[in-house]
């Protein structure tokens, strides 16, 4: 165990896996010289000469090329610079990456990891702040993960790299600087994609979140504890597939559900969680499901406006206390 930042934890995961398998390579913009714009690839170019490749600003190639490389037997990890740019290569993700294996009846496999730094920083404005994970949960053929802390960052990335499926790895830009104790992981399977973790046990209400949203979930749980409400906090970690059972089990225990994410509320992944519970465990609920997400507008630049699109622990606290009135 030693203290590592989220971004260093991802570097470590990459380095360990690349050392184990020389079919793994990294491709993206600004990697070789700068180690990624958030330092999330630092040291790799030196450690693995020739296996960290600077691409032009050609996202359709970064993904499409990654898919082709995977089809040819390599194991690419590609970087999307900002998740906001993912729309630029949506076709390569949706029509190629996600479908080739299925369309071709299992002849192909696409062991590719797409690293996508997402979320709001400070005044990043409309095109550098988005959380778009929900789109990809609607796409059969890819897996979607979004870890919330350095330890998971490493374990989940290792699992993603070892997976023979295409995985989109959302890494929140604010979380990069978070530090925490991270264990050296030996060679055993570090994490099983699709499994959630109960971060905090509780009996009164279930709070479900992932990625940066966990700050709100845990923050709210602490405040609620002071008022005698014991919240159970579930970190989904993986969104597609997602750990339905973990959520249902918890809700059947607590009878209350609160969901929070940074992404726009309408059409967000929170809706999938709420809808699933409404269909499979509604008879256990003692209160309406609460869902928190950004209001329905792009991320504005001005600080006064930007504050309005963020979700804060206080919002959850207020809503959850309402469940008990």
């Amino acid at each position: 165990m030693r203290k590592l930042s989220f971004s260093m934890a991802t570097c470590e995961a990459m380095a360990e896996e690349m050392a184990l398998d020389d079919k793994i390579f990294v491709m993206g913009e600004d990697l070789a010289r700068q180690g990624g714009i958030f330092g999330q690839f630092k040291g790799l170019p030196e450690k693995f000469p020739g296996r960290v490749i600077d691409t032009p600003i050609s996202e359709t190639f970064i993904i499409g090329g990654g898919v082709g490389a995977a089809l040819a037997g390599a194991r690419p990890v590609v970087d999307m610079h900002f998740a906001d740019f993912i729309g630029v290569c949506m076709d390569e993700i949706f029509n190629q990456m996600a479908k080739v294996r299925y369309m071709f009846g299992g002849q192909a496999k696409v062991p590719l990891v797409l690293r996508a730094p997402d979320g709001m920083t400070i005044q990043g404005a409309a095109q550098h702040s988005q959380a778009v994970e929900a789109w990809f949960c609607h796409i059969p053929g890819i897996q979607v993960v979004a870890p919330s802390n350095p330890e998971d960052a490493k374990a989940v990335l290792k699992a993603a790299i070892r997976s023979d499926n295409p995985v989109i790895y959302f890494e929140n830009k604010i979380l990069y600087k978070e530090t925490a104790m991270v264990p050296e992981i030996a060679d055993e399977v570090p994490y099983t994609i699709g499994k959630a973790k109960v971060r905090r046990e509780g009996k009164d209400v279930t709070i479900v979140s992932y990625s940066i949203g966990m700050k709100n979930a845990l923050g709210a749980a602490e405040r609620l504890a002071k008022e005698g409400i014991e919240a159970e906090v579930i970190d989904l970690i993986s969104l597609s597939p997602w750990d339905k059972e973990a959520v249902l089990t918890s809700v059947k225990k607590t009878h209350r559900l609160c969901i929070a994410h940074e992404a726009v509320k309408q059409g967000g992944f929170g809706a999938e969680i709420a809808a699933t519970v409404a269909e499979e465990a509604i008879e256990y609920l003692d209160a309406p499901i609460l869902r928190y997400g950004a209001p329905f507008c792009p991320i504005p630049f001005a600080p006064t406006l930007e504050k309005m699109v963020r979700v804060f622990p206080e919002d959850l606290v207020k809503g959850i206390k309402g469940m008990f009135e």
Partner: protein
Amino acid sequence: MSIKSYREATFDAMKEEMIRDGTVYAIAEDINGNGGTHGRYTGLGEAIGDPGRVIDAPISEAIIVGSAVGAAMSGLRPIVDLRFSNCIPCAMDEIVNQAAKSRYMFGGQAKVPMVIRAPDGILKMQGAHHTDCLEAWFTHVPGLQVVVPSTPAEGKGLLKTAIRNDNPVLFFEHKKLMAMTGEVPEEDYTIPFGKARVVREGRDVSVIVYGIMVSRALEAAEKLAAEGIDAEIIDLRTLSPWDREAVLASVKKTGRAVVAHEAVRQSGFGAEISATIAEEAFGALKAPVIRIGAPFVPIPMAPNLEDLCRVLPENIYEGVHRALGRQSDR
């Protein structure tokens, strides 16, 4: 009134709007070659007496949409056709980062009045690259409006609204609609966005649908009526904005809800509807909210596998029975 196919009804809508307003133009691949997919544009240039406003585009989706954004910001009202919903991802950035955001980012200086028409849905063995229903993505994008018409008459009125409306609109049309015929008013009319219509009144269960699913729900309702089950069917018409009030009012009346669409079930728009009901009509719910959508796979080619991905009247019928069967013991 006269009987028209969906194709003819929407053609009339474009024709009338393009004659009325010289700033409306249509651009697509093959638009003059074969009238675009399903011949929805055949003869449009001549019909409006101005072939220059019906433009053949290269196979360059990014620029077809991107240029439409620029043209719209410069005073035109483009109708962009992307042939198949699966071509949308080729222009995803132009839609979500340019069309949707320009007005907002630039503080209202710009406006982007454009319509993107995209035929979608399963027809017959077209494989995984020509059939997906992608509406859910765009309901998650502030700045866009999403329309999914269900009949020829609806198609005409909604398309006219979309063309006159000053926002970027995604107009999803199920391929099975194209040849569907129905009564279409001759006169000039529009249908407001965000206002659902109750297609069939009922007291036992609310069936919330849109697009092609409306006719399938009606079919299911007939079968249910024969068993004495009275289903209320709501056609959302537009998904963003969507008529929460109408849905909530109906569910509060019936106490039961079934939501159905042809898109993949996981993270589809049905989830938003169902989640909203669970939040805001919770007290009125007598049963779980049933959600029906395609299984979590791309569309396979083999006809028998393909059929497993369709959402048909029997699926809705069966869903209603599930809603009625499992009473909530709350």
